[in-house]
Structures are given as structure tokens and as C-alpha cells.
């Protein structure tokens, strides 16, 4: 594998990166590779250094490049090794989806069963129920959770005193850093059968109301939890987009007689549009990942009928029943569908002129 910036010889900076480049890490400069196409092309390089400066031999031997870059490679090694062991190796381990795996025989010794695990999965009503719940929760998140950070960001942005704003931001960001166990516990203490709400009802002579075990309230409860935990954190990206809107637009609109609402409609919202579209598309690509701990923690209280999502289904399939292949096959199906969704979502993003999480190659 030679790297292109180096083998392209005397040409100037490589244009856009060709690799998968998450826009999230790009600093707005077009992919992690963007911005500076190699440190070397800004200042003339000494011979034997990296970069694409002209006074360089067209091709360097692997050995001399190794001598030049071994420190960098050594630095990269621990992270790459961790990813190789704990990301790529288990990814290959998905092969047990085609086996009737048992831990004593291992991957080598376990019998191969072709697609029969898939057949069993697709005829399992609980799998379809979990898939249905996942999509339902994702849809609810999209409709009821997604717009809230936008509104909240506009609201926060309208607070003019910097200190007040910082205080409010500190408060609304905070719950993002609480664990799901903590959030669920707090909700239980307020809304549960032994919680504050029921306590007040009881003291006033009413029957207590346990919202936290009522299956009909499940969607309401989990959505409230998501909003409580993450709506504030979600404003960060919109606040950044709001700060990037040219203030002169507001001024000239105001001079032209546009009122507060018209300015919001014609300036603020169009300014937020790219971010909104991007996040919507990313959300579509991520629709099967509705969260895990939140549902795992409340599965017993609300019942598997409403609260089982794909991830908890995989867990209970396997680690409770001991059938590893059944869990792996569900995970593999989820992963493949998720991958397809990400690719489709990015196609959509590119079509709408956005970057998506990777660029068009």
C-alpha cells in the first residue's frame, strides 16, 4: 500500500480526500484530510521529509520511508491494535451466525448450519416485535425529540446576557453526562409507584399512580427521559449554526421592516437548514440504534411487549438462553440493515448537497 500523497510525486496538494471521511471530524474543512493537504505543501520541505514539495525523488523506498516515519507508526500502533482486537476481530466473529455455535467447540469445532439461524430468526415473532418497537421508538424520537433542541437553541440564543446564557447552558447540558441508570432512577423517584408524584397523591387521599410500570405510558416515559437527558446537549450544534449566521442579515431585514417572526422565518430557519437536514439524514441512517441501556433497564418494569428493542432482544436471546448463534444472527442482521441505511442516508445527503458522514468518493 503506497500512500497517494507521496506517490503522486511532484504534483501539488492532493485535492479532496478519497477515504471515508466523517464530516463530524472535519472541522468544516472537508474531511479530516482536508484543510491542509499535507503539512509539507505550505513550506518548502527539506529533502527526505514528508509532504508533496517538489524537490523530492519521485518514489522513495519503503525502507527510507520507514526510517523517516517509524515514530509516527509506533504512536498509531496502540490505538490500531485496540481497534483490531476489539472491533475488527469480533466483527469477523459474526461468522458464528452461520453456525450452531457452542463455547466448548469454539468457532473451529462448531457445526456449520448455513442460513438456518436466519430462518429461525425471521420466523421468530419476538424478533419482529422487537423490530417493530425499535422503529416505533425511532419514529417517536424523530417527531417528538428531534425538533426540541432546535427550539431550545433559538430560545437560548435569544438570551443576550452572556452570563445568564452560560448558566442556562450549563444547566441544560448537564443531564447529558448522567448515566442511564441515574436518569431512570431519578424518573422512578418522581413518577414511580413509590415516587414523589404518588406520594403526593396518597397524602391527599388519591390512589397512587405508577407511571413507571404502565405499558401504555412507556413511549411517553422513554421520550420524556430522552428529552430530559439529551435535548439540552443537542442544542450545541444548533447554537454553533446560529452563531454562524451573518448578523448583518438580521439588521438589514429589520431596517426593511421585517418583524421578529419574519426574521426568524426568513433568516434563522434557512440558516439552520443545512444542519437540520444533515442531522435528519444521519438520524435516518442510525434508526435501528435507539439506545440500549435505557430499554434494558426498564424492560422488566414495562414488560418485553412494549420495551423490547433489537439490542435487548439480542442480549436476551443469547446471554440468557446461552444460544450464541441466535444472538449473533440477530446482531448481524441489524448491523447489515444499519450499514445499508447509513449508505442510503449518505447518498441522500450527497444528493441534497451535504457532506454526510463520508464524502462521495
Amino acid at each position, binding site marked *: 500500500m503506497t*500512500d497517494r*500523497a*507521496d506517490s503522486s510525486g511532484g504534483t501539488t496538494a492532493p485535492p479532496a480526500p478519497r*477515504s*471515508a*471521511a*466523517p464530516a*463530524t*471530524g472535519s*472541522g468544516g474543512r472537508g474531511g*479530516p484530510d482536508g*484543510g491542509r493537504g*499535507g*503539512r*509539507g505543501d*505550505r513550506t518548502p520541505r527539506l529533502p527526505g521529509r514528508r509532504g508533496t514539495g517538489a524537490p523530492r525523488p519521485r518514489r522513495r523506498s*519503503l525502507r527510507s520511508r520507514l526510517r523517516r*516515519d517509524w*515514530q*509516527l*507508526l*509506533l*504512536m*498509531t500502533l496502540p*490505538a490500531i491494535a*485496540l*481497534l483490531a*482486537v*476489539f*472491533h*475488527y476481530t*469480533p466483527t469477523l466473529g*459474526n461468522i*458464528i451466525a452461520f453456525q450452531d455455535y457452542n463455547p466448548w467447540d469454539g468457532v473451529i469445532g462448531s457445526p456449520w448450519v448455513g442460513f438456518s439461524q436466519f430462518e429461525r430468526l425471521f420466523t421468530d415473532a419476538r424478533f419482529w416485535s422487537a423490530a417493530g418497537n425499535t422503529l416505533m421508538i425511532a419514529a417517536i424520537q424523530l417527531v417528538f425529540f428531534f425538533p426540541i433542541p432546535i427550539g431550545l437553541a433559538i*430560545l*437560548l440564543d435569544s438570551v443576550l446576557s*452572556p452570563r*445568564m446564557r452560560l448558566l442556562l*447552558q450549563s444547566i441544560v*447540558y*448537564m443531564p447529558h*453526562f448522567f*448515566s442511564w*441508570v*441515574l436518569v431512570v432512577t431519578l424518573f422512578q*423517584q418522581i413518577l414511580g409507584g*413509590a415516587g*414523589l408524584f404518588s*406520594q403526593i397523591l396518597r397524602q391527599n387521599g388519591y390512589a397512587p399512580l405508577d407511571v413507571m410500570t404502565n405499558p401504555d405510558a412507556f413511549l411517553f416515559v422513554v421520550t420524556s427521559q430522552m428529552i430530559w437527558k439529551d435535548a439540552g446537549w443537542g442544542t*450545541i450544534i444548533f447554537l454553533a449554526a446560529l452563531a454562524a449566521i451573518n448578523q448583518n442579515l438580521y*439588521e438589514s431585514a*429589520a*431596517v426593511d421592516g421585517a418583524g*421578529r417572526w419574519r426574521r426568524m422565518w426568513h433568516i434563522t430557519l434557512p440558516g439552520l437548514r443545512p444542519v437540520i437536514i444533515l442531522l435528519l439524514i444521519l438520524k435516518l441512517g442510525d434508526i435501528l440504534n435507539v439506545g440500549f441501556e435505557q430499554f*434494558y433497564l426498564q424492560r422488566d418494569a414495562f414488560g418485553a411487549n412494549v420495551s423490547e428493542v433489537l439490542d435487548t432482544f*439480542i442480549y436476551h436471546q*443469547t446471554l440468557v438462553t446461552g444460544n*450464541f448463534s441466535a444472538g449473533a444472527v440477530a446482531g448481524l442482521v441489524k*448491523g447489515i440493515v444499519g*450499514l445499508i441505511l447509513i449508505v442510503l442516508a449518505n447518498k441522500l445527503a450527497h444528493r441534497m448537497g451535504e457532506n454526510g458522514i463520508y464524502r462521495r468518493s
Partner: protein
Amino acid sequence: MSTLFADRPVWAERPSLPARAAKNTTLAAIAVVIIFPLYIVVLTSLSPASAVNSAGGLVLVPQGISFQAYADLFSGGVVTRAVLVSLGVTAVGTAVSLAATILAAYGLSQTGSLWHRPLLFAVLLTFLFAPGMIPLYLLVSNVGLIDSYWSLILPTAVNAFNLVVMRAFFMNLPGEISDSARVDGASEWTILTRLVLPMSKGVTAVIGLFYAVGYWNAFFNAILYINDNSKWPLQLILRQYVQQGQQLSSNSVIGDAVQGTASAPNLAIQMAIVVVALVPVTFVYPLVQKHFTKGVIIGAVKG
């Protein structure tokens, strides 16, 4: 509330009184909804038995103060141990994660270096798919990490997103100083530690916070990988004794020293566990918050 309108631009009209009232009420309500549960939890944990009993549950109005619940928790029982486990995993994990992330972010920030592209690609590819819970569990089990604290650290040690954010930050630093240091014969290690890191305190703090909060809050990996409940981190204790409401007195949650003597009410102890889980996060995060815009938004958000 006049400070709220300190810097209104000259062209903007002052909103009408009802509009201002509505806005301020909304903001105040949001703040209350977030703070109120924390308030009653902290208050109940600090309330004496009489206050908890007379309130018939959670305490809304302060009636005296008692640190009995905390004294019970930290008298050497399960909770003490769990707090130590969580602190240890968080400290070691954050150190490992930050080291691996910073090194790799720097190693990959020099475009044009050997194997830079394939290595970067290998990092970025992890965004597209997760290995899946079951194969990961089997791997952790096969390498013998079940019931080891390392199982709570190594599988999540490198977060590709954090790595990419950090790398983007390094690449946006002015390169001229590093270049001249390199000309003077400085090693990459020297450039990283002497030149690059001192310029990257904010982003390091933010990424460090993300990792630390992740380790402190980690719950499910302990469910998967830690069977021995004497090695449980705090979040599992929180779940067992507070969320699931398992009785505390029948267990050794509180140390032997205080068993049999007058201890704090069950609810106060439960709430004290919540507070213990809450406090590190609430105290560390404001210190780092000022870097959020710089470190995170610049690095991550401007998609």
C-alpha cells in the same frame, strides 16, 4: 431581569412584555425541571430519619441535616468498594484512552506519512458498523478478560470519533513551529509533548471528560463481563439497590461497623448512592464546559 437584555442590537425592537414574560417563564421552567429532581435527591440524602418519616418519602422542604447516610455508605461496605472500583476504572481507563487517542491522532495527523491512508481508513471504517454484542462478548471471554477490570476498559478504550476530532484539531494547529523543530532534529515525540500538547489543552480536557464520563457511567459492559459482584462498579450498585429497590439492611451495603447501630433510613441511603454517582460528573463538567465550544464545536460540529 434587565441584564437579560444587556446587549440588544440597536435595530432590534424590544419584545413586548408578554413575550418577555413567556420566554423567561419557559427558560425558568426548563431549569426547574432539570434541577428539581436533583434537589430532592440531595435533600433526602441529607435528611435525618425524622424528616424522611414525616415526609412519608422524599423530602421537599429541608428539616434538619444529617450526614448519617453518607457515614453508613462509606463505612467500608459494598458501596465503598464500588466507588473505589469506579474511580479506579475511570482513572486508569481515561489515562489509557487519552494516551492511545492522542498518540494515534498525532501519528495520523501527518498526511503523507507512511501508511497514513490505510491506517486512517481503518479508524474511520469503524464508524460504519459495530462488531455486535455477542461476538464482542465471545472475544472478551476468549482472551480471558471476564471478571477482569480490563474488560471495562479495553473494548471501549479507543473511540474513533474522539480520535478524529483530536486529529482534526492537531491538523488545524499552525504547522510552522513543528516543521522548524523537525528541521532542528526534534523527534516526533518531543514535538508532540513539547509543542503540540501545550497548544491542545482545551481539546484534551474535553476528550478526557468524554472518556471519563463514559467510564464512570458505564453500566452494560459490567453486566456483560463482570459476574463477580464484589467487582461491580457503582452504576450496578445504583441499579440493584436503588432502581430495583433491593433492601439494603439485609445486605452488607453498609459496613460491619455500623450494622446493628442506628443507621440512616433506607431511602436516605438510596438517595446518597444516587448523589455519589452524580457528584463527580456534576463537579468535573463545569470545569471543562468552557472548552466545549472551542474543542468540540470547532472540531466536531461544523459538518
